[in-house]
């Protein structure tokens, strides 16, 4: 396994509110990591700490096995970052911003930037204040991709965009990048749109990862189990890994992770009328874990 990013015991609070507490994460090179969490769970805070925008209170961050500090800057040359709202200097034109940004990156690829400008039909003379949200996202992509980053961090970039634009962004750009081997950390709360593209899934809650798994394996091992019986099933479900449980008299719905043969036999040993085991999509998985 080749690690590109490792986070150890990272903590951050704002006043009395603890946002992240002993947070740990390891990302492999070349993978697409989906980071989910409801609003306010600390996704943006985590990303800002990785990018050196705000300092952590405690913990360590390693990029390509090198420890990075709040004051370090050189590692950022290899990281592309698209923030939740692509915010730039509103008085600049697209051309001016790209020129300004290029000065920070030795590997800046002007040809690529121009190619993306044409692809996205953006006029370089347009002032940033006159761009729509979608256009700003596209500009953010150009700003990021023209520096040819090895690692791309996306902090909820598609929030507020219309469906076709989101679709363009995700399917055409992200897929293209991941196929090219770029490591991507995609933070979002719009769950369903990353289902087809992520390799790993992390769910952030209470300041830490409550789930950090290979997504395909996860999908195979998280199951919704529907049970019916003649008698009440209250206190009868004693298997491990029950994520959620809803009992309604003689009917019961549980989400189990990981679902194993052993657990299946244990459930079957109960006096049941019916047992249905159903797969879950990402949205359902997230809701179950996050609730």
């Amino acid at each position, binding site marked *: 396994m080749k690690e590109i990013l490792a986070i150890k015991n990272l903590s951050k609070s*704002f*006043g009395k509110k603890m946002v992240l507490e002993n947070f740990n994460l390891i990302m492999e090179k070349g993978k697409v990591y989906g980071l989910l969490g409801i609003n306010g769970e600390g996704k943006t805070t985590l990303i*800002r700490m990785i*990018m*050196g*925008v*705000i*300092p952590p209170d405690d913990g360590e961050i390693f990029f390509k096995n090198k420890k990075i500090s*709040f*004051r370090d*800057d*050189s*590692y*950022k*040359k290899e990281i592309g*970052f698209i*923030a939740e*709202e692509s*915010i*730039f*200097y*509103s*008085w600049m034109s697209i051309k001016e911003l790209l*020129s*300004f*940004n290029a*000065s*920070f*990156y030795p590997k800046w690829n002007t040809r690529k930037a121009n190619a993306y400008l044409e692809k996205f039909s953006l006029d370089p003379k347009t002032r940033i204040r006159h761009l729509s949200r979608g256009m700003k996202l596209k500009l953010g992509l150009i700003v990021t991709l023209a520096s040819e980053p090895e690692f791309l961090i996306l902090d909820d970039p598609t929030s507020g965009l219309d469906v076709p634009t989101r679709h363009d962004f995700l399917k055409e750009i992200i897929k293209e990048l991941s196929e090219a081997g770029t490591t991507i950390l995609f933070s979002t709360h719009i769950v369903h749109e990353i289902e087809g593209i992520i390799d790993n899934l992390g769910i952030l809650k209470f300041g830490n990862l409550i789930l950090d798994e290979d997504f395909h394996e996860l999908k195979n091992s998280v199951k919704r189990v529907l049970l019916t019986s003649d008698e009440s099933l209250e206190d009868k479900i004693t298997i491990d890994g029950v994520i959620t449980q809803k009992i309604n008299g003689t009917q019961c719905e549980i989400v189990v992770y990981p679902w194993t043969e052993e657990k299946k036999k244990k459930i079957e040993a109960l006096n049941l009328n019916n047992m249905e085991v159903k797969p879950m999509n990402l949205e359902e998985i997230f809701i179950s874990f996050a609730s």
Partner: protein
Amino acid sequence: MFLKILLKEWRENILIFSLAVILMLALVVLNLTDLKELTLNFSGMFLIFFLPFAALLIGSSGFYSEFKDNAWVYLFSRPIKKEVLWVLKFISLLSILLVIFLMFFIARQFLPGLNEVLDNFAFPQEFRGILSFSMYFVIPLVAFVISFSISILYDRQFVIFFISGLIGTVLMVIYQQYLLFMERVYYYPGSFKIFSLFIALSFILASLITFVKYDFSQMGKKILTFSKFAVLFLVVSLVLSTIGIAKGELFTGSKDFYPFSSLKYEGDVYTYAYQRGISRIIKYDSESDRMEKISEKSSHTRSRFSIGGENIIYLREARLPKKYWLNNIWIVNIDGSGEKPLVEIDNPDSPVYNHEILDGNLLSSDGKEVIFLTYLFDKDARKKIITVWWMNVNGSGIKKKKLEFPGNYWGFQLLAWSEPENHLILMYEVKSQTFKPIAKRVVLVNLENESQRTLFENVIEGIYTLRTSPTYDHLALASRGEPDGKERLFILNLKTLEKKTVFEADLLKLWAVKWSQDGRKILFSRTNELWAYFLDENRLQKVSQRNYGHEVGFDWLADNKRFVLIVPVDGEYHLSVLSEDSKEEKRIKIPYPVEGPVFAWGLNNNVLLKFRMGPLFRLDLETEKWKKVY
């Protein structure tokens, strides 16, 4: 990267820069007209108001665009060290301010009219001691540094602007108190610049540390962190600069004395000296052949003193709040004993409480009476009040008279007091309403009936040329005559008020006048010439020897028959002893490097020579031996 940041900052501040250009153009246009008063006022407004305003505005824009557009996330996530980012922004914005300064300096160079009016621009009285022309640029620079430093804290530019202005004002008040304290102890003319530098550094450090190490997103914490560091550094700066000034002055400070304020008296030479931060009166004592301390302290800014009988009077700082530049009159015996205050403006029981004592206080020739001038501004009548006071040196018998002078007058100086005739001779400068000097005038004031008579208009004052005779009965001075414009050296009889013209020329180029101890002869120097004038014979005589280029190295000896002169001979310098008819009796080589003026005092067979910024030597004319006395 720097270029991009520079261009970005210039672009964001183009409005204020454009305003500066427009104002400069207006200044140039005004200067080409005859509207001198308007030009002066406009220039003044530009210096006093616009420059600090522009500095605050430019500085407070430091991180405004990042706050406004929320672009700080974008900027901080770029591969650039935060301290580098801070510094590059600082330099970029500073460059805008410096270009505005440069435009002003260039205009000043090419517009002589602007130069002239600025040289005569008067700043409020309270700051005159602190602020020279260069301060008009130091203050905006400090304002810029403060506003830029705190621009990291908040997203409202005008809040930063006003808070910076407030901080700057508070610091100026603190500085005044600091100056009061420091000048009580040590005189250090550069203290304002040192103080400004330390303030600037304190804010820079506090801002940098907060910016580099702390969370930009948490405003409360940021402000608290910055405040803690800023206060800490300011306190440290204040302590360090105080220690530095004191220590520097105590151990390595300069020691020098000022020949222009020296007086020969009873075979000794008394002078005002600056000794490692302390100003005082010292004397060369012929008997002990060494320098002796006469007063403990003396005013830092007023070096004149007066000797009469067994007494010396001089000025020393008063302790009036907010008016630290004002002085009391002190008295001391010529042997340094019995030093005490004589006239106290900081004593509420004193009749001169809160007045300003003007320059040139005089003792009577027997040392028993003192006469001095005071100034007070009557706020109700909006009038300057000049009062002459005279009293016994034991404090009794105070008399006073109010004096009125026409026009806008400044810079009073008492020159001579003729007690039997009860008249006073004083000099003052007449200025225009825009403070342009018009003339120096010497007037006679009759203390009985307060009448005044102008004795001389257009006095040419040089630091060595306005001299009372040691016998207190004559005054040598130069003035320019109207309408012929010729410059003349006069001797005024202080009792009869008879004026004798000693010398006249289109340009006198007068350097120094030295009286013989019997008050009957003078030597005076012009560029490359030395002359003698004999009062009794009304005879002028040119000294045959060529005078040394820095024309103060000559004096009468105590016998009133001979004088000494520094002469260059084949690239070396000698002290020549001449008889009054210019016959050289002796020539002694000066074994020390002569660079700049050398001041000479002739004593009884001894000569004191003070080398510029260097030691004082005593030469024995008989043994031709040199001794370093100071």
